[in-house]
């Protein structure tokens, strides 16, 4: 069976304590619940959750939707936005996880990458180095979400054309965002030409697409 790998990268710095992280948890839960209602997703989607602050940690390895359980997300007391490190980790996982089509094996659908961050990498040099590395790999779509009123979208736009910003970090907003994520995931498994890029569904009004 063909897998649709979905990597979700979440910044978990100290600033996320309280409502923001709870909102993300609620958002993730509703995303998983809604994906489980999509028969195609139920048979193809594999999700990996990765958190990052000063360190990157894969809290859920690539797991099929049917058997996956959301793990605990713990927050460090302080922070750091080592997005460069996190992207480096994503590249490593991509190289290990993703199966390409060979004559003997059916390949995965092109993987999707969702990044939720304040958009201010503290390891900027590494971040800039990792951008071409990420682009070398074939993600069906990379969606960066700049969360919070003080989030910065400029750096993220260098990584992907799909940058959205969330002004607030309450659960209603995150729910909307993850609903959109699950809609995007549902659209991820379609026949496309070898060079074509995946189409995303239009984002809900709470989410501002940054052009």
């Amino acid at each position, binding site marked *: *069976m063909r897998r649709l790998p979905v990597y979700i990268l979440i910044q978990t710095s100290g600033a996320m304590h309280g409502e923001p992280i709870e909102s993300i948890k609620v958002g993730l839960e509703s995303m998983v619940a809604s994906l489980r*209602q999509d*028969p195609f997703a139920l*048979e193809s989607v594999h999700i990996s959750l990765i958190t990052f602050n000063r360190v990157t940690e894969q809290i859920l390895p690539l797991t099929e939707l049917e058997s996956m359980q959301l793990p605990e997300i713990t927050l460090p007391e302080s922070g750091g936005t080592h997005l460069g490190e996190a992207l480096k980790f994503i590249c490593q996982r991509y190289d290990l996880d993703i199966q390409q089509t*060979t004559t003997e094996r*059916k390949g*995965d659908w092109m993987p999707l990458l969702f990044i939720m961050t304040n958009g201010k990498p503290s390891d900027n040099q590494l971040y800039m180095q990792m951008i071409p590395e990420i682009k070398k790999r074939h993600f069906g779509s990379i969606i960066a979400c700049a969360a919070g009123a003080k989030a910065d979208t400029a750096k993220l736009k260098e990584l992907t054309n799909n940058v959205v910003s969330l002004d607030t970090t309450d659960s209603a907003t995150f729910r909307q965002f993850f609903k959109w994520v699950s809609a995007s995931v549902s659209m991820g498994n379609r026949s496309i030409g070898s060079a074509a890029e995946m189409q995303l569904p239009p984002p809900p009004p709470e989410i501002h697409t940054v052009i």
Partner: protein
Amino acid sequence: MDITNYLSNIEVPSADEVQVKLFLTSKMEELKSHILLLWDDFILAESIKSGNSETPENLMKSDQGGTVDPAENHVQSSQQQDEPQIEVPKADLKDIAKNEEIALIIKNKFITLPNGKVGQPYNFIFSPEKIGIADIEDFWIEGLEPLGLSFDTVTNSITGVPTVPGEQTIQLFLQRNGWSKGKPIFERKLTLTINPDPRSLWLNKPSDPNDQYWKPDSAKQFLKVESTGLILKTGHKDIVAASQRGRSHAHEGIFRDDDFVMDYNKNTNWYIMAVADGAGSCKASRKGSQIACQTVLNVCKTRLENEHKDFERLIKELNNEMSDANRKKMGDSLYGIIGAAVFKAYKNIEEEATISGKQTKDFSTTLIISICKKFKFGWFVAAFWVGDGGIGIYDKNRRFLRVLGETDGGEFAGQTRFLTMPEITQPEELYRRLRFDIVEDFTALILMSDGITDPKFETDANLLKIEKWDELWNDLSSEVDFTDNNEKSADQLLKWLDFWSPGNHDDRTIAILF
């Protein structure tokens, strides 16, 4: 303050552990001071050394929040209590502290249960020890029955076949070692995820018949070829084809993108078959596949009517001598028939794109074509193939398989090449994709879209394995009666197309000459 007074004054049912826990937590400070006070009493009692050794058993019970007779409270108050009388409350308080500790562990423990699936047997042995809750004598889980499950107290397992999908809440109850009536029963809510049966989730919404490029959600055709005239008595074959909109399309009420055509010319005895699969991501691809099939039919039919004599002479020469020179002549000639048809199909799509103000790539489609005819010396079969899917000549008895081309696959699932890509209609590229063969006889010539090859063959390598074709043919034959002149075979084939294969829910189209 007096703890027994506290406990006797609040009316908490012994089973309502939440209430008891709340109470104990809120009174933590008072309880602590009470313990200190009792400790002082104990020291005092030690120094007095009274000889009375009667043990008030009711004290044990009262400290656990059970029913207490206020008349028994007197045992607490006297400073003249003897040693055993004081030791019991001390042990009790340790017990309360332990209960609190366990309650806290149970409350904060990250407990997950494996996910279940509607209609599939579930069996999970639950062990508090394994998840780090110690000192438990007995436990059970409630709330399972409405979900089609039950808790087996002998094996300590959740068993049954889930019937209700969703994030379900169930309750875990635990009792500590040495539990007796009146002592706390810990309760914890757990979430059990029951996945729905994917089959139950697929919707079947009709496509919009008023759409510009609407086509029926399914199609079928049977072509009976009579054994008359030039066709040798034993040599004639019928064609059956069927095309079914995939579940993934039906779910969203979108269109069938696949298409097919077939034809048998009674005058020339030539068969023409084509199967096309419009790209799911392109908005007008259903029209693209239709234009491709119709154009191929028209061009091949006309060309064969006009040129069949010359063409058939070449085939006979080829049969006499399979030389490179004859093969080259045949290739060139095929290029003039099938190649022309492919090119015209591309041009017609381009024209439709211009007229409708769309881009050619909006009509992206794969295309598999075959033309064939029975001769005295055997069957001549020629083919052209761009994209995924497959075409093969299969002979069950002779154990013969010839796949007429190569799959155009990408690095990732769902990627392929399309007729509408400009490079495909370049002469060399077009020529490269032509195939022809002369075979004595065969069980079936099969053309199919990737909605069938993906579930049935899985990989490109498998498409070349005769065992996989055997499986396909056995599977087909179990539902479709491939005897001569079976008019019902089209319905049977269409029904067969509904087969279940996890993750494979694309449009399915198959055309069989048998």
